[in-house]
């Protein structure tokens, strides 16, 4: 039985099967990355039906690239013709040389599709454990750094103030426009959204009280801290991460200098100085955002200011500012920790930058919740 296949593939093939189970397959044409996938399927379907004992493949008329060779190798392992012995003939020396680079071990290893994944419960346990360990490390680091900052402030002459002010300027001054715009808009949105429900009780004038309290106690510090994490924390992580990749951290270590003392303390001090300033700025901008809305509702400016004055006490401001100092420590030290934890290679810097922002914001909200619970209990 001889079957010649005219088809639309650039590969032509002659397949002849004798009654004793010996078959000859003569391939000719171009077997390249383009034509191999379709031909692979066709050939596999064709051979699957045949009962073979021996298959002789003649490739003397075939032009082939690595994709074609992969098919020939697959064919020669007998994977397409179970139970039959397969031999290739007519290979040019170059192709023979290339074919030898395919190995039986690779092929066998690829045959094993056993999923090696662990169970769901295992995964959840491992992930939780590593998350808890990471959290513990973060909190320990914050503690270590806070202690370091206090010790350094006791001996201010040893501090590298130049670096503190460099960081303060880069991380702070340039952040003001963004923080201002953001909190201005948030203040406006809060005023609009609260004006409607309060109108139902004829209490629209209390929008001013609400805005004052929310901005000084909650949103001022939180928005400022989130901007600090996004703008400056990520910069800290990237800077320290690059230093790690560049072996500068190793250089510090072999000089006997601690990276915490040399790099982290300055950034944390800058963060502590910066966060309250940004927060006060955010509080004002938020209030300013609410004022146009209140003026639009028909309240005179003087009345709005009096309302805010009567609603706000020193305690509210103190709460907002003390929060912001804690947030400043959190953002600066977590970002530095992520920078120091950077692995090998440039991609690791990107990873630690992302991790710095995520962890900072997470811990900010966490600390905010603790603050809320504590101050609620204290006020009662």
């Amino acid at each position, binding site marked *: 039985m001889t079957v010649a296949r005219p088809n639309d593939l650039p590969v032509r093939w002659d397949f002849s099967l004798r009654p004793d189970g010996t078959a000859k397959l003569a391939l000719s044409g171009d077997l390249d990355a383009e034509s191999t996938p379709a031909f692979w399927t066709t050939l596999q379907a064709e051979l699957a039906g045949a009962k073979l004992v021996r298959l002789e493949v003649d490739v003397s008329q075939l032009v082939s690239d690595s994709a074609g060779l992969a098919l020939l190798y697959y064919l020669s392992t007998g994977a397409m013709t179970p139970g039959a012995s397969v031999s290739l003939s007519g290979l040019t020396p170059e192709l023979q040389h290339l074919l030898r680079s395919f190995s039986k071990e690779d092929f066998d290893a690829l045959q094993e599709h056993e999923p090696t994944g662990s169970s769901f419960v295992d995964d959840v346990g491992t992930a939780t454990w590593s998350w808890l360990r990471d959290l513990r490390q973060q909190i320990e680091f914050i503690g270590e750094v806070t202690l370091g900052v206090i010790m350094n402030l006791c001996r201010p002459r040893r501090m590298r103030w130049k*670096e503190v002010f*460099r960081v303060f300027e880069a991380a702070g001054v340039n952040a003001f426009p963004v923080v201002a715009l953001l909190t201005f808009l948030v203040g406006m949105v809060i005023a609009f959204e609260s004006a409607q429900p309060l109108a139902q009780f004829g209490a629209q004038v209390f929008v001013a009280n609400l805005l004052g309290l929310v901005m000084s106690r909650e949103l001022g510090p939180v928005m400022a801290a989130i901007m600090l994490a996004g703008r400056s924390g990520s910069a800290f992580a990237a800077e320290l991460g690059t*230093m790690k990749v*560049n*072996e*500068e951290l*190793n*250089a510090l*270590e*072999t*000089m*006997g*200098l601690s990276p915490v003392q040399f790099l982290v303390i300055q950034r944390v001090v800058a963060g502590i100085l910066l966060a309250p300033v940004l927060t006060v700025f955010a509080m004002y901008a938020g209030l300013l955002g609410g004022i146009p809305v209140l003026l639009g509702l028909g309240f005179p400016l003087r009345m709005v200011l009096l309302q805010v004055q009567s609603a706000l006490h020193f305690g509210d401001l103190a709460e907002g500012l003390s929060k912001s100092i804690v947030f400043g420590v959190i953002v600066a030290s977590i970002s530095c920790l992520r920078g120091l934890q950077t692995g090998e290679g440039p991609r690791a810097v990107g990873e630690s930058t992302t991790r710095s922002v995520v962890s900072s914001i997470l811990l900010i909200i966490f600390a905010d919740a603790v603050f809320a619970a504590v101050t609620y209990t204290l006020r009662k």
Partner: protein
Amino acid sequence: MSPAARNMIEVRDLTVGYDDRLVLERVNFQVRRGEVFAILGASGSGKSTLLKHLIGLYQPIAGDVLISGASLVHAEREERLLILRKFGVLYQSGALFGSLTTVENVRLPLDEFTELSEMAKDLIALSKLRLVGLESAATKLPADLSGGMQKRAGIARAIVLDPCILFLDEPSAGLDPITSAGLDALIRELVRGLGITFVMVTHELASIYSVADRVIVLDPHIRGIVAEGPPAWLRDHAPQPWVRQFLNREAT
């Protein structure tokens, strides 16, 4: 001089590795005072790992590294600082701090560890820069220096506290042949002039023949030292054919 005093570095039964694999097993060697010692080996044989253990960046699995008789592995904090002060390191990239100028980089160890006056510190830093031929680049930032200049600035910073040993990690990597030969000349000058002991990891055979007194060759298969001796002697007489091939720069 007793043998112990002649050995600047002594490595005893050092076993090192990462989480799941051993890189070197029970390695022993000594580096003598005032010699230029090179660590050779194929890619992946653990040269850089060994260097990082010699300078105390990594903690070994077992064994000890003695720097002029004191153990770096078992040292407590204060003692460790004293040992660290005995050597300088030139990293592959130079590892200069990007926010400081060249002269500030060189001054940094003086700022941190000495009580000298500002003038004295500047004077010392500039003298080291002159020694490596970089006096004209003192006020430039590292980003404005070429690769070769960064490495020379790195050497200046590494020798500013007058260490007994200088470790070099691939000093000629990424340099053109002329700059690299200039670096070799600088090393010879520092050995002759300051009596510094050099330990270098390198691939550059030309610079090994021109500066190294003794080399060790690491073999990833036996996870240890396969040959030790003067490079020219090993090139012709090493018992292992592949070491001779390696040093003759022949393909296997």
